[in-house]
């Protein structure tokens, strides 16, 4: 799948839109125009950062590499749209479950799900690893004095 939307020029346009929107948002905030005691504008640094992004986005629209499609965007397909968010969602859910189930109970289902999704077979291997890894990690961090969430097992661990 080739197309203009993968080119550096398109990436520049996306950047321009995002940075432009952020710039307008910051500009509209009262704190951005607040002058501090030393005479410094509170919003100056964020606006410099966004200004930098806008200039770079503009640069990508017109520079000599504008028609080039980055190697990493050449093979982009629908998987790139849904796989990373699902991976992040699964990780987020695992962490959310940790707060009440504890690390030792919340981590195995997450590991099992992702390992099976990625293709770890046989199932027995995935099951063993998804239980053994969290137990080992928990033991290691406990030895180091790092307290991981214990959840409902707080009384036992």
């Amino acid at each position, binding site marked *: 799948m080739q197309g203009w939307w993968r080119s*550096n020029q398109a990436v*520049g346009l996306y*950047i321009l839109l995002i940075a432009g929107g*952020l710039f307008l948002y*910051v500009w509209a905030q009262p*704190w*951005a125009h*607040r002058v*501090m005691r*030393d*005479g*410094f504008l*509170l*919003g100056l*640094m*964020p606006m*410099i*950062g*966004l*200004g*930098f*992004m806008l*200039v*770079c*986005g503009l*640069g*990508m629209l017109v520079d000599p*590499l504008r028609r080039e499609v*980055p*190697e*990493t*965007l050449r093979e982009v397909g629908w*998987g790139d749209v849904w*796989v*990373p*968010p699902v*991976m*992040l969602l699964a*990780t987020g859910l695992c*962490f959310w479950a940790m*707060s009440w189930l504890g690390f030792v109970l919340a*981590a195995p289902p*997450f*590991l099992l799900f*992702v*390992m099976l*999704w*990625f*293709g*770890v077979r046989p199932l027995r291997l995935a099951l063993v*690893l998804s239980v053994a*890894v*969290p137990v080992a*990690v928990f033991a290691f*961090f406990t030895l180091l*004095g*790092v*307290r*991981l*969430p214990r959840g409902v097992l707080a009384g036992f661990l």
Partner: protein
Amino acid sequence: MQIEAFHDALALVFTVETLAWLAIGVFLGVGLGAIPGLTASTGIALMLPLSFTLEIAGALGLLIGLYKGAVFGGSISAISFATPGAPDSAATVYDGYKLTKQGKGRKAILTALYSSVTADTASDIVVILVAPTIALLALQFGPTERLWLMVVAITLLGTLSGRHLAKGMLSAGIGLFLGTIGADPVSNVARNTFGQDWLRDGIHLVPLVIGIFAMSQMLDQGLELLRRKRVPERVQERLADLFGKKSEGLTFREYLSCWREMGIGIGVGTFVGALPGLGATVAAFMSYGIAKQLFPQKRIGEGSIHGIAAAESGNNATVGPTLVPLLAFGIPGSATAALIGAALILQGITPSPRMFTLHAEVIYALFLILILGNFFNLGIGRAFAFVYARLGQVPGEVLVPVIMLMAVIGAFAARGDASDVYMMLGLGFLGFLMRRAGIPEAPLVITFLIAPLLEENLRRALLINRGDWGGALFGSALGIGLAGFALFVILLTFKLNVGRRIAGIGHAEEERPKR
């Protein structure tokens, strides 16, 4: 030399705990480097939260050991499977893999180890001699000069980090913007929080580095795993060669015969490592390319230990010098230096030239750890390199979810704050999008770290000049010179496509030899 501080440093470093963490760091680092797809930055980002549960010397031992080990470790999979553990070791593939196919894999790995350790030690000595002198010079700088020095560093990073100037600078812009979220560094007034109270303290460094370096990479690799199944090609027979007792080792005479290539690697690596933005990959390819041009009779590229020595000494010689800008100016010159700087900040020590007077014992401890790390690298590399070659076989299907879990633990363990984990996940997605668009991550992290210092120095310069912007920005000849240099770098990069040429060093070499 401050003798008392040196004694304190000896007491800090020569404890069972520090030496054990140094050994653990190297052990983990070599293993991490040997696994294709995992880099030193990923490892250090994941270990950062653990480091601040340790004493300062132990933390430095863990992180520097990990860094040194990982840079060497990359060569193991490059030699064994023609798959570099990290881009730094890509130049090692040409000769290393050919030697493995000839049944001389053991010789190749030993050459990589000895040349890595030799170059690393030599460049560390240069750092120890040079850094204090530069720091002494940097102490004379006022806020205006410091401000422009940071601008120069950001410019160099942005322009040299990749082949596309606009993308490098864009990454720096994102870092600057993210660095301004939360209370401003001088008046402590909240800004840029998008109305969220939990952003009042700003984005914490640990979720940022774990998200940008570790989580984004795992998202990338997870996607890659689902896209195609990797088939380990004839791994068993090649590994059998590495483990076989009959396999040819490296003689002392052969090691000495590589002295010219190691010399080139030390020179190139030390220089490139000290410059912000270039890094070990460029050093390895430059050193390899120079050696190949200078000594055609050594048949570099056709399975020669001299090619391995040039590439490996080039990349390992950057390890120490990459800390020079951090120690001398308080400005990290690479992603790894930024992470080591972050570890120092989390330990309550701000990297700056004043560190040499305020925390001299920490500086000496760091120097000792740099040198000691090489001995540990030699010992652990010698004992376990052939075992680590097996690590390249650990399937990504298992590694990716485990590292994702470690990223969650790392982000949470730092402050015990749930919002850090969600922030890490969000930043991981940002890092993934940047990777996809070919935007380098290192300028983002480094500018994020520099942003408060940049503002502090600008505001200090303005105060000194009573609000006069002209005086604050161009009040000194050195300031004008540095500003001019930054502008010159941008113009030169744009005109000559410097980033593209540097990025092309590796590609040009990759196209030449046929495996």
